[in-house]
């Protein structure tokens, strides 16, 4: 059984609000950049960059980060995660990085992403923006910007789709009995 949690309008509104919050908290866009975690976070980071540009009339750099090499579950997975591109075509040292992901769950991906960023340079700050916070944290990690908080059961699955993937913009909750 699946349930729609957000449609394309809901997602757009959430992204717009998050863009405003990012600008407000950082008092503008000075030394600010966005880094999306592969793959869902990358689309979201690009959209946030477009929104921020619309609001502030300033281009802010956006990159993508693959965390496969930094995961803590390589020994227990069935197969190695597919390695996607890390493209951060700007110097991150002394920048404020807003790390962007689609779903915040255990927090382990964010831990891996922070380690990966620290190996690339020394940002002055790392903030976290997620479209969905579904709870069940296993590490002391908290998002600075959240599109929507959704209480879930551990057995459920949250799926975020984007038009960039050839699907419609949508957030879906897959119930346990389906899996």
């Amino acid at each position, binding site marked *: 059984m699946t349930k729609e949690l957000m449609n394309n309008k809901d997602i757009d509104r959430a992204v717009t609000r998050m863009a405003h919050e990012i600008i407000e908290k950082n008092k503008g866009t000075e030394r600010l950049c966005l880094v999306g975690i592969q793959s869902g976070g990358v689309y979201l980071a690009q959209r946030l960059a477009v929104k921020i540009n619309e609001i502030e009339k300033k281009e802010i750099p956006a990159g993508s980060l*693959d965390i496969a090499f*930094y995961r803590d579950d*390589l020994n227990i*997975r069935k*197969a*190695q995660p597919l*390695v*996607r*591109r890390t493209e951060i075509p700007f110097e991150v040292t002394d920048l404020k990085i807003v790390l962007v992901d689609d779903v915040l769950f255990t927090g382990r991906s964010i831990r891996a992403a922070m380690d990966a960023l620290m*190996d690339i340079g020394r940002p002055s700050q790392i903030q976290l923006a997620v479209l969905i916070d579904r709870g069940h944290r296993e590490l002391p990690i908290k998002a600075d910007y959240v599109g929507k908080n959704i209480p879930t059961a551990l057995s459920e699955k949250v799926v975020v789709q984007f038009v960039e993937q050839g699907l419609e913009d949508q957030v879906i909750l897959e119930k346990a009995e389906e899996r």
Partner: protein
Amino acid sequence: MLSKDLLGIKELSKDEINLILDTASGFKDVIGRDIKKVPTLRGKTTVNLFFEPSTRTRTSFELAAKRLSTDVVNFSVPTSSVVKGESLIDTALTVQALGADFIIIRHASSGVPHLLAKELRASIINAGDGTNEHPTQALLDAFTIREKKGKIEELEIAIVGDIAHSRVAKSNIYSLIKLGAKVRLIGPPTLIPEEIKDLGVRIFHNMEEGVTGVDVLMMLRIQMERQDKGFFPSTEEYSKNWCLTDARLFLAKEDAIVMHPGPMNRGIEIVSDIADGPKSVILEQVTNGIAVRMAVMYLLAGVKR
């Protein structure tokens, strides 16, 4: 990946080759940074077991293993128990008992990695076995071609020199054909076995004809030790017929690239001006070798036993 080992390109599917090349792109990013190391295979152990001399391949594997955060031991043969008569399998079992997760092996006899792969739980990576295969060289060559040309399919690729004794050539033929390239072999009849035609390659016994219109030229090292066995009369004569010179390179496509697995015999199979010239990608091959070997180790680590 289907197997815990990398024994040869012959055993790989096209999809597996492409997966290795795609994964290697990610590692190429890593080795271009200030911090060239990732924690991916922390706690694993790599043993370099080289029964034949090698500097570049062994160093490349060692760097790849270190940049994945594995611990590396070089089990060099002249100082080990092998000289005391320990059997190959015993040596390998000992290495495994020491805790090796990866065993990188080079041996003068074809098939040695395959034998060890059956006996051992560790991942065996073939770093060259006799005249059989040298799979990571072919993978780094494919990676380099793809990077330079954007694709491999439909490219005209010539391999020049001692095909008969070259494991590099053999692995490259398997790989390039699986990836859809048109492969030509160029060299004297004594160094190209007739039956190799069955793999779907074209054979040229004339350098000028062979290089005309190619996108990629892969020069092989002429193995001096073969000269005594009468495969070619002299290095001078070899060089006269098969050396890559400016005049011959001019017959290839204008944007052709020149490759060599190293170490080069300058002036014998390739002139220095070309080896160091703008069409040469020889040093890039060396750099890409680390990324490709990291990708192989990373993917093999994920195969369940």
